[in-house]
């Protein structure tokens, strides 16, 4: 922290279980930028968070020399642009960048809501519908992976890039969900062989391995979170 090579003061407000928080953590690791990780307490929001992200009141928030940057994928792009000397996260070609942003947005807008839907479903029907959507999404992402990686390990090619971070940050939750749903296969050796290989490589990457939590820890945390969601739904 004291010796951050003129990177300025870098703080990240977040929490270890959040896949969205994992994204800037991985990005900062790729750039070898040290940062102070300010973890929020589960169930409450700090004054700093509320002041730094008054619009959404959500984590992650990057504070770079006390200036806040919010929204995980936007933070990752910011990190890539500021620390441009380090390994690049977004591709250099404009069309490839549009494709990368497209799939990162897809993960957030189409795929992830079904994770929440499946985990906190109030009926068997709702759960199955969410799982079906997730499986459809996995098939699409498998296709995207094959097309974009062009035979290399990652969506980003030889090294992890924007889509890898956006989707890879979901892996701990994805694995936990498979267990919590009684062995449902989202990463499927037969249906998504590319993603299975990719998931192993991504998880083992030096920028990732200390950030992605163990599946068991997420399962424990998920129980707390699901209880909270259900309580909120019951009281509204």
């Amino acid at each position, binding site marked *: 922290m004291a010796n951050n090579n003129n990177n300025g003061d870098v703080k990240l407000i977040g929490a270890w279980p959040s896949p969205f928080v994992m994204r800037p953590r991985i990005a900062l690791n790729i750039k070898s930028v040290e940062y102070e990780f300010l973890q929020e307490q589960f169930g409450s929001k700090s004054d700093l968070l509320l002041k730094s992200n*008054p619009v959404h009141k959500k984590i992650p928030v990057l504070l*770079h020399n006390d200036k806040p940057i919010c929204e995980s994928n936007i933070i990752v792009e910011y990190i890539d*642009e*500021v620390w441009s000397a380090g390994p690049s996260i977004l591709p250099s070609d404009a069309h490839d*960048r549009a494709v990368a*942003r*497209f799939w990162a947005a897809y993960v957030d807008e189409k795929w992830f809501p079904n994770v929440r839907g499946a985990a906190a479903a109030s009926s068997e029907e709702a759960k199955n519908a969410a799982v079906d959507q997730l499986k459809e999404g996995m098939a*699409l992402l498998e296709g995207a992976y094959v097309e974009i990686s062009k035979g290399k390990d990652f969506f980003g090619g030889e090294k992890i890039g924007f889509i890898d971070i956006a989707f890879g940050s979901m892996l701990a939750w994805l694995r936990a969900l498979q267990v919590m749903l009684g062995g449902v296969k989202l990463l499927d050796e037969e249906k998504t062989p590319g993603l299975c290989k990719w998931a192993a490589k991504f998880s083992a990457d030096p920028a990732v391995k200390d950030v992605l939590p163990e599946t068991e820890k997420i399962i424990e945390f998920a129980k707390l979170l699901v209880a909270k969601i259900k309580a909120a739904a019951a009281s509204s």
Partner: protein
Amino acid sequence: MAKEIKLLGTWASPFSHRIELALKLKGLQFQYLEEDLSNKSQLLLQSNPVHKKIPVLIHNGNPISESLLIMEYIDETWQHQNPLLPKDPYGRAAARFWAKFIDEKVLWTAFKAYNDKGKEQEDAIEEFSQQLKFLEEELKGKEYFGGERFGFVDIASFFILQFLRVLQEVKEAELMTEEKYPVLFEWMEKLQGNEVVAGCLPPREKHVAYVRARRAAAEEAASKTKAA
């Protein structure tokens, strides 16, 4: 030259208007293809198989979808005039943040505020009002969201807010008023007075009639579902 750039859009969609304006600001020739959303073209379905939505930009045969992403693509590919995003990373992050806020929060909350009933509508009206206050605060003291010149956030938000004003007229609800949001209204007037920007807006009466018809159809379909 014109064949290189195609825009698949619809005349009534604010997302489509964004791209028209971005292309015009860059001085680009393009072929505009009006889509019939009840009968989507093969080209649209091939170019955007995941979402099957407009707008889609096709440049040298390569399709790009999602209007904000298309705007970034346009800005990065044609850098010679009218930059849409600022150069500094913090300014870019802020611009992306506000544009995303419009698309993910403001638009959907506004729909509920204008179209829902009962408590859901009340809550949405409250939330919408708070969101407009955030925008008003962000704009205060500036000519445009982009600063001295209009840019990414201005383009992203202007057409959406204009669309919402059309919806407001159809629903006869006074949620966005000059009294409550004087800064936003002054900014909208400024942009309406800009020829290039105004040229991307459909005729007001036509837009109102269209949205009115769509709302009537949606409400009828909803009441049939309830009755069934």
